[in-house]
């Protein structure tokens, strides 16, 4: 209907409106995005930008290197995703709001990049070597532009941040504050005679906290296993087979050869003509002649080599293996003897004079030392089809006759074995395997009492399990845990007694009794710390944490020590930090400024992000193993 009426009016004003409306998206967004189909699914979409699987995985890899094993993979992925989203939301916002980097600014940045500089000056040659193609140059320019864009924004915020002098003063007063305190410890042990724990209390505790006294569910399993290694053990292997295997796989028993060489490079610009090339070759030949006539190689390298990485070290390139150098270089370096000097070698970099310094590796282990390994490997290979066959019939029979392991055992001539009692936390050997535990406590085995599916353990090793006995979770009997409960209750109540006493003392102190009087009457041992700051390490940590969180006007307080004792703290005097020290003032100010700038920048990112359209493809994300 709609289309019909459109067609009817297609000759009138309506047609104009339609055509103009249609031309707007083409005008604004360009035609290419309509022509190129979208084949790459996005992990996340921020505005118009799609984070591809490739980009996401690259970032995850980089981040993983940085955190190497410190945090788990799931967390790394989360961190990476957050970073990518924040970064892209910011870039989108900046370019949409009209921030832009000109060609000149990019040029300036590249010319001042230390990576492309030789003797403090921009080197066209270095630049071309790092970024050989037009494509890589353009990519690099884009990333420089993005970097500059982000810097303009964050630098603008952090460089304009300010902290007033009164803020700095107040912070110094507080964080450099010193407190002169006295403290005494009321020992919980001293109250041990005054308390008794009744059976009633123990029973109550037992009933109220049953969760703490649970025995987990346990199972005993019957199982059949097939291991390719065990099958292989009985295979016969002849000496001929062994020596053939050794010859065929000699590379596996050989340390790869590595060579150490020095070189002198006469670098050839990519656009050099024949004349320039001949001239360079003559120059190189002259140096080679000098070396052949006895000039020192490393001196000549220092004087003539145009390889910035090695010239200063006398041309030393260190050790390298096959496949690490350009082909012409490698061919020559691997044909020389230690101490030899090559003729001129031409590579894509220019002309090289190569000196081989030393060779390491390259030797093969003798047959005798690897004989056992070889026998194992041959045996292992031999039983492949037998193993696969057995596994298949085990799988079929165990599945078709799920009520017993006997048929499998008879058919395959295996012995049914039994495990010890294990919990879902796992046991020894194969019973630590998470796949096996999942099956053992899963529905098929535990609830239905059937044979499990085939469980593949590591290294060509399979098992099928079934339940023999199940001991449900239960609560330990009271008698077994009575002592534990009693000692816990005892500890709690002597601490409570000590706290009671300490609070009473604090009340006396607040009412006007002096600390001296109090200590004499009750024979307490008083410790005086003198004026201490927040960094003090001599005073116990529990007391330190309390002292500097006590409000200014509070004189006395109690705090619980780790061992259950109670400390009474008396603050004798407070001395605020001195902001008169100019060096301290400046350093605190700098630190506060930096904090503030960082905070303003990160909050800006949050603010911008909250205004961006962000879609995360959680399904695709969870597939990225």
């Amino acid at each position: 209907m709609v289309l019909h009426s459109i067609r009817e009016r297609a000759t009138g004003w309506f047609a104009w409106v339609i055509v103009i409306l249609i031309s707007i998206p083409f005008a604004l967004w360009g035609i290419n995005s309509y022509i190129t189909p979208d084949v790459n699914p996005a992990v996340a979409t921020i505005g118009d930008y799609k984070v591809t699987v490739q980009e996401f995985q690259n970032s995850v890899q980089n981040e993983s290197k940085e955190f190497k094993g410190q945090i788990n993979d799931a967390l790394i992925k989360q961190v990476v995703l957050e970073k990518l989203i924040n970064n892209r939301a910011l870039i989108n916002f900046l370019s949409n709001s009209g921030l832009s980097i000109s060609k000149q600014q990019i040029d300036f940045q590249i010319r001042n990049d230390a990576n492309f500089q030789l003797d403090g000056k921009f080197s066209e040659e270095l630049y071309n070597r790092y970024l050989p193609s037009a494509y890589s140059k353009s990519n690099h320019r884009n990333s420089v532009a993005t970097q500059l864009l982000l810097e303009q924004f964050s630098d603008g915020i952090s460089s304009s941040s300010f902290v007033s002098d009164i803020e700095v003063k107040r912070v110094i007063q507080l964080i450099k504050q010193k407190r002169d305190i006295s403290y005494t410890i009321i020992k919980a042990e001293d109250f041990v005679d005054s308390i008794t724990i009744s059976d009633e209390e123990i029973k109550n505790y037992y009933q109220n906290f049953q969760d703490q006294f649970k025995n987990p569910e346990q199972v005993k399993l019957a199982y059949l296993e097939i291991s390719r290694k065990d099958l292989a053990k009985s295979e016969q292997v002849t000496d001929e087979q062994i020596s053939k295997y050794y010859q065929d796989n000699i590379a596996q028993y050989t340390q790869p050869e590595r060579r150490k060489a020095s070189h002198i490079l006469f670098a050839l610009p990519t656009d050099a003509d024949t004349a320039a090339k001949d001239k360079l070759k003559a120059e190189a030949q002259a140096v080679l002649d000098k070396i052949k006539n006895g000039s020192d190689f490393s001196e000549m390298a220092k004087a003539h080599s145009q390889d910035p990485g090695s010239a200063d070290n006398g041309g030393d390139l260190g050790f390298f293996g096959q496949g690490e150098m350009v082909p012409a270089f490698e061919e020559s370096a691997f044909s020389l003897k230690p101490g030899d000097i090559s003729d001129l070698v031409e590579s894509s970099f220019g002309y090289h004079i190569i000196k081989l310094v030393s060779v390491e590796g390259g030797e093969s282990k003798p047959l005798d030392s690897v004989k056992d390994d070889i026998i194992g490997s041959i045996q292992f290979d031999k039983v492949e089809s037998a193993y696969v066959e057995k596994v298949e019939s085990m799988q079929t029979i165990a599945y078709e006759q799920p009520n017993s392991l006997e048929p499998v055992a008879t058919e395959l001539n295996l012995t049914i074995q039994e495990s010890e009692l294990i919990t879902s936390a796992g046991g020894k050997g194969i019973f630590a395997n998470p796949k096996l535990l999942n099956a053992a406590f899963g529905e098929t085995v535990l609830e239905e009492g059937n044979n499990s599916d085939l469980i593949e353990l590591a290294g060509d090793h399979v098992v099928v399990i079934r339940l023999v006995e199940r001991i449900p979770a239960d609560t330990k009997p009271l008698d077994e845990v009575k002592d534990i409960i009693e000692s816990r209750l005892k500890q709690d109540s002597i601490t409570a007694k000590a706290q009671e006493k300490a609070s009473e003392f604090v009340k006396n102190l607040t009412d006007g009794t002096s600390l001296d009087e109090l200590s004499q009457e009750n024979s307490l041992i008083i410790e005086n710390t003198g004026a201490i700051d927040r960094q003090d390490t001599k005073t116990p940590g529990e007391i330190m944490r309390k002292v500097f969180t006590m409000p200014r006007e509070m004189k006395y307080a109690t705090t619980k020590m780790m061992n259950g004792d109670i400390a009474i703290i008396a603050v004798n005097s407070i001395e605020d930090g001195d902001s008169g020290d100019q060096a301290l003032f400046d350093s605190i100010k700098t630190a506060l400024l930096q904090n503030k700038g960082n905070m303003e920048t990160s909050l800006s990112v949050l603010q911008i992000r909250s205004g961006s359209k962000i879609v995360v493809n959680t399904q695709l994300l969870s597939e990225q193993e």
Partner: protein
Amino acid sequence: MDNYETEEQQVEAIKKWLTENYKMVIVLAIVGLGSIVGVQQWKQNKLVTAQTASVEYDHILQAVKGNKDEQISQQVNTMLTDYSDYPYAALSAMLEAKQMINAGKFAEAEEKYQWVIANAQASNLKHISRVRLASLMAAQGKNEQALKVLEVEQGSFKATYLEVKGDILVALKRTDEARSAYDQALQAYAAIGANTQVLKVKRNDLGNS
């Protein structure tokens, strides 16, 4: 939609429509192409303007970042009049304010922040400028006035608004309110995982009640 008997009929119908309307089709095509070219031209102009502002801005940024004793007010004025739609203008104003504060010209610095609050498109720069304006007023003892500046919608900057509010209330000796502002600030910072060591020290100093 009508069903045509055969493809020929369909082609006939299209031909007929075209002979009747070809003039309009041509005119529309010209208009369409014209607007594409026009928009591209407009974009190109905008880009050139943005990049001119970008270069100017870099100069101002380097002057303030390097603590150079350099007159930038002329350049900042140009920014504010010619490029006021771009974030470069707001950022330049904020940078000049910093230079002014260092020189003790607080009133002029306040004006720069007011300009950003009134003119910037980027909400984050407005928020930052408001919080800075309030701190600057408080540093001159204009506490009541500073509190008023903070009474706005706060977006993602809630935590910093509250911290500065707490600082001002401490200066006004309105301890109960300061405590509550700091507590809320601590909560807001915790929600975004920020480091609050110094704020905790300031809060503890006010006691528990």
